[in-house]
């Protein structure tokens, strides 16, 4: 798989000759220096972007062949996301943020399901708080709850502990792996955190857009 972009200075190759497979239920850490193409790879796997050439198959569906709306629907059905900057909707409460993917998937018991998973991440006392009123660790726990609320087959995490202090980061990492085990989710995480990467069953190292170790 190859990804190139055109910039004013000419064409830039972000990723070249990437080819790998992850087994269901496995955990994969994508590591590498800044600018090595980690986030680009994650974006491609999530169907947020399209490769210049090559194919990506998620759970038997070739997402590279789908249009944007179909990929969005697939994401809603199969994937969960955790971001470095949390990406909670500021206009919704913790509970409503977690309900959002469930409601988009027309789940009739969205509220109950959201409460359950928020309880699981230890935030049952913060249901009606807005993101602004939560600490960084709490926000990321809401984001994790949101990611797991729909029982995704694939969880994609972009530097999930990158914005948190060491202690909080460790706890959030812990939570991520616990839920991964409980739900049997396939986990892909992009990280600079070697400790977090070491906990994954497999590691993928990128250097200047090339796969150097798998």
């Amino acid at each position: 798989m190859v990804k190139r972009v055109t910039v004013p200075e000419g064409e830039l190759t972000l990723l070249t000759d990437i080819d790998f497979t992850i087994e269901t239920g496995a955990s994969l850490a994508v590591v590498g220096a800044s600018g090595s193409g980690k986030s680009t790879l994650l974006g491609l796997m999530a169907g947020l972007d399209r490769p210049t050439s090559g194919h990506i198959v998620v759970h038997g569906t070739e997402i590279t062949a789908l249009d944007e709306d179909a990929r969005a629907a697939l994401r809603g059905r199969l994937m969960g996301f955790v971001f470095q900057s949390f990406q909670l909707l500021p206009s919704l409460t913790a509970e409503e943020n977690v309900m959002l993917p469930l409601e988009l998937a027309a789940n009739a018991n969205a509220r109950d399901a959201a409460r359950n998973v928020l309880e699981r991440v230890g935030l049952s006392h913060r249901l009606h708080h807005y993101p602004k009123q939560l600490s960084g660790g709490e926000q990321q726990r809401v984001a994790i709850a949101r990611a797991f609320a729909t029982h995704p087959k694939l969880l994609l995490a972009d530097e999930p502990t990158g914005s948190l202090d060491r202690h909080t980061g460790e706890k959030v990492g812990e939570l991520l792996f616990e839920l991964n085990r409980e739900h049997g989710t396939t986990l892909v995480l992009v990280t600079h955190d070697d400790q977090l990467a070491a906990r994954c069953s497999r590691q993928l190292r990128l250097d200047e857009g090339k796969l150097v170790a798998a």
Partner: protein
Amino acid sequence: MNSVDRRLAWRMLRREWRSGDLRVFFVAIALATAAVAAVGFFTDRIAQVLALNANELLGGDLIVSSPNPLPEEWLTAARQQGLASARTVEFPSMVGGAQRFELAGVKAVSEGYPLRGTLRIADDLFAADRETTTVPSVGSVWAEARLLSAIGAQVGDTVNLGQSKLKVEAVLSNEPARAAGNVFSMAPRLLVRIDDLTATGLIGPGSRVRYTDLFAGSADTVAEFRKSVEKQLSPLQRMQGVEDARPEVRQALERARRFLGLAAMVSVVLASIAVALTADRFINRHLDACAVMRCLGASQRTILSIYGRQIGAVALAGGALGVLIGYLAQNGLVAMAASVTNGTLPAPSMMPVLAALATAAVTVIGFAAPPLMRLRNVPTLRVLRREMTPMTGGARTTVLFGATALIALLLWQAGDPKLGMWVVLGLLGALVALGGLAWIMLSLTRRLTRGVGVAWRFGIANLVRRGRSSVVQVIGFGLGFTALLLLSVVRGDLLDAWSQRLPEDAPNRFLINIQPSQMEEVKRFYQARNQPDPGFYPMVRGRLVAVNGKPTAEEDYADDRAQRLVAREFNLSFAEEMAADNKIVAGQWWSGGEAAAQWSVEEGLAKTLGFKMGDTLSFQVADRTIEAKITSLRGVEWDSFRVNFFVIGPPQALVDYPATYITAFYLPEDRGEFLTDLLRTFPNITVIDVAAVMTQVRNIITRVSEAIEYVFAFTIAAGLVVLYASIHATFDERIREAAVLRVLGAGRGDVYKSLIAEFAVLGGIAGTVAAIAAFLVGKIVAEKFFDLSYSFDISLWFTGTVAGALVVGVAGILGTRRVVSTPPWTTLREVT
């Protein structure tokens, strides 16, 4: 899915509302709607008030005249529809007194006449007159002083009219139709009761009689009746409504409509800017949320539906509130209107409501929809890379889409395509000029940073660095200021210029029928009583018999007014010099008194009758025909109340024809004895009191000024919302930068200074450019549409620049004072 969209939309809306983002949008929509609704209601009301005033000159709301009595069914229909009616029968007849007979214009009237306006009578010749609500008693007449003098009769005497002997009951001094019709062509008036008509034996087959039926009622009913009757009119029957008022009143009414249209347009422009700014900010703030939702599986349609619903709901609520405010505001006007009209006004129509809501809808669709559509294209990758923004070109779509919507709105609100087009062009020009000038001035500002403190440098550097968005902001502020300046300063100047057209000492009396042989004596009469020589103008009566050799006939003209003009005699005049307040719009005025026969024609008349330069007009004067070409077209200020003529020729052409002289002069109200003396000395002269017409024109000017002041309040509010929205639009960015400054060690004073520098320079530039734009638009509008001259006032420039810097500077500081009052770390964490 729909219910999910709705639930999500509502849930987010509640929070957005509390966070204040949509409130500016809401206020902008509410104000826009309120302004348009208010202008709509005002225009509606004012038009009705003015129409009522004008109808007083006509004697009714609608009059139909014909050589034969009107069909009874029409009168029955009018009664059934709830209209009041009255009838007059007019014909010329000799009236005899003790000494002689004289030709009089006899008018027989039914009880109730006039339906609008009043008759004025005096109990004795040259006694003070008063208003009356009655008509002559059975067996009596009211006669004009001129007629009584001519036949040597007094109040109480008996006069002969046909086979009847009737008693003179009072002296008639004024009647409504006198000022409304062709005031200069009437024989002295004799008013008689219609019931006495048969006995005179004067009305028979073939007699030259004009039957006129007058109707009055609510505007709707009158319009309905007019519509039902109009189709059945025979060529001999002529209908007249307020539209056919005297040229002075017509011109004033026309100006009034334009002024109000202008006020409405400015409100629309302001509202659109505010909506565009707030919608854009709202959308920009939700790009992240959209990307996240796309990540979570939301389709493009879902996203559009969620945000579309939010904007739609707020727009709807704002629109409803606006209409309510507009409606409540017009109650104030009802009170105002009540002081000039005796009757009650019909309820305001629903049109302003619809117009206001349509404006809100078009504004939202034109200015909020394009940014909304951008949400569809939010790259989902934005969740990983924040710098990714939707495709560019969105801004261009907004401008194109919005501009189209705005132009459509302007043309609609102006109610005059040409005026609308000019305002649109003015605004487009202002837009381009604002952009270009802003760019140049920003570049120049960079040089200002030498030798100033770091805070100033930072503030100004910010402006320059954000070049593009600064230019957009200058345009936003600038358009807001342009509109405000246009309305405040220019409006005042326009209104002043307008009312100066009718100064306190504008002529209020016309004298007609002065014989050439009396001229010197009349002049001496003025001198002896310390009245300035008012200037006397010759008048030759002639009938238009041919245009370019082709005989004219009433039927050849479709237009009502044209038919009437052709049917009656023209008052031709001759002069060596053109009147100072006339203006040549085509061709040339002749030089010297020896010039060959030719015509100078008033442009409005030329337009109505389809005359062009070079056309040959033939007038029959007495038993001769004068044939000459049109060599110039003139613009005339009818509302100046000076003596003016539709058709003028050089002295050489007309001097040999029978002429009488006419003059107009100002008579102070306390010098009634001057007229009494004048009439005693020259009984053949007729005095026409145009004070009533002048009062109408003055009323129009006052009412409209008041209405504009009133509407102005809304427009100012709309302008302030624009300013607020402009500042709000870059609020996040500024607050963030200021926080960074403070983190880097800048003191609060430094932050203030940098903000002041940035906002004040921005405001100053916008204000300067706005002053230029407002002046240009004002000048074009004044000269092209109001026929008023308008010159540049340097204070406008000063006001623009200083007010711009001050208002934007202060508002900017107030808007961002949170930056300095909250710990910078909190600010940085909140605004992510």
